[in-house]
């Protein structure tokens, strides 16, 4: 599903990723944990092909290589669901319209087909009652749930989550993690990046620790594609309350 083969990424002189290799299969759950600047977000940006690696190869599904054309890049992103720390919702559109946008972008559905898909996604995240609300009218937790609905509405094979609980208070963070667990249990692969090991623990799955652009711990830091040596999926632990530092 996603494979990094000796991927290095430099921003000018700064080394963000240092020849890392890892792989995740369909339906798997992987968390990258590390401090700020460890290279976590760079991994997600490489997966979505927002940036190209300095060297090495990134494979996502059938998309392989460092130079993917613009149209192919758009196609790739339609197969992913991405959840951001800052939600990235359009404030001038209702929750329904924000989620519907992701469906319309695929170009596969007529207006009449869009509505039921969006309503199902909103129901899954418990926001069906707020479908007509604008993002500013929602709490941070509700906004993140709207963003999750948008990420899953096209039933992607993999959901990427970039610090999804960082802007949330503990109760909302717990709800978001529970939602991600449910998405994973429903069959989607989940790739989480976070600074908080407790969030990764709560989600479950394989945890890889990043430090200064290298995978320093976790299952099989040099995993060739197709290798079966992954950590068994752990049962999800409850998310501990968030501290003020978070």
């Amino acid at each position, binding site marked *: 599903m996603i494979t990094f083969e000796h991927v290095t990424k430099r921003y000018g002189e700064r080394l963000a990723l240092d020849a890392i290799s890892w792989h995740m299969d369909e339906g798997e759950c992987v968390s990258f944990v590390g401090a700020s600047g460890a290279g976590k977000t760079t991994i997600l940006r490489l997966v979505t092909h927002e940036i190209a690696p300095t060297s090495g190869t990134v494979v996502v599904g059938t998309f392989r290589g460092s130079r993917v054309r613009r*149209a192919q890049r*758009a196609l790739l*992103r339609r*197969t992913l669901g991405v959840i951001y720390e800052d939600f990235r919702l359009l404030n001038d559109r209702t929750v329904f319209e924000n989620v519907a946008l992701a469906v319309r*972008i695929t*170009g596969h559905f007529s207006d009449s087909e869009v509505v039921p898909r969006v309503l199902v996604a909103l129901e899954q995240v418990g926001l069906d009652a707020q479908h007509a609300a604008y993002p500013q009218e929602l709490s941070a937790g509700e906004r993140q749930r709207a963003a999750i609905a948008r990420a899953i509405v096209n039933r992607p094979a993999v959901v990427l989550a970039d610090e999804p609980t960082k802007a949330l208070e503990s109760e909302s963070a717990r709800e978001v993690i529970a939602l991600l667990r449910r998405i994973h249990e429903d069959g989607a692969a989940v790739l989480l990046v976070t600074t908080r090991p407790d969030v990764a623990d709560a989600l479950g799955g394989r945890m890889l620790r990043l430090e200064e652009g290298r995978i320093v711990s976790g299952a099989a830091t040099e995993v060739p594609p197709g290798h079966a040596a992954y950590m068994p999926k752990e049962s999800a632990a409850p998310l501990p309350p968030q501290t003020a530092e978070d």
Partner: protein
Amino acid sequence: MHVYFLREAWRSFRQHQGLAWTAVVSLTATLLLCAVFLLLTNNARRAVRFIGDRREMVVYLRDDVSPALRDSLIGRLTVLYGAVTYVSKQQAWDEFSQQVGDPQLLQAVDQNPLPASLRVRLRPELLNYSAMEQAAKQVQQFPEVEDVRYGGEWVRRLDELQATLTRDSLAVGVVVALAILLVIYNTIRLSVMTRRREVEIMIRLGASDRFIATPLTIEAVGQTLLAALIALGLLFAVQQLALQQVARVTFLPPWWLAGFVGGAVLLAWIAASVAVARALRSAGP
């Protein structure tokens, strides 16, 4: 999906009204300038055509030309240059008498000094100075012909006037086309800049360039269409005013109107497509 694009274009127009109306006003001013020039050109062309229709060559005959020779000449001139009307000496005198009007003055003339003539209504392809000049020289060679007159100087001026009008129309057309391209291009770039965040989010969600560009292009085409209709409305008001105050001014014929609106919309579409493509290339992640 098409309804969605129309809805998005309308939403964008409403949300960025300042920008949208600025574009409409700029385009209206540019298009009105073009429309006024088209109105002037159209009326000048009509006037030239009206005068041009009256261009004829007058062939004066020798007094000793027999009816048989005259009829033979009429046949040849009809084939070579156009419809011929014979004006006898008596008809020429009658016309002259009517024009002069004073019987005492006419009595002073002993006998009819006017020659018989042939008035040749030239075929359309001969209605220009050089062709008329050449035709006159050829007709002059016939032995039955005394003299040929065709008002060469004013025919030349008329041709020059027509050429100037055509040239100026083209020049104004080019200037207006460039102005439309520039206004639309900059409006679209500003539009993309003002909604950079929205465009970025769409790109992250996997929107194709076409998906993002279509509502913006529809909006630009809509603004231009609106501006073209306002410009034509204002032009109609100007024409009605001129009709009442100054002189008979004819409004633009339907196919000119269609060409004006269609041309403006086509230019807007081209400018919008180029601008969106360029803006998107530099916009997204």
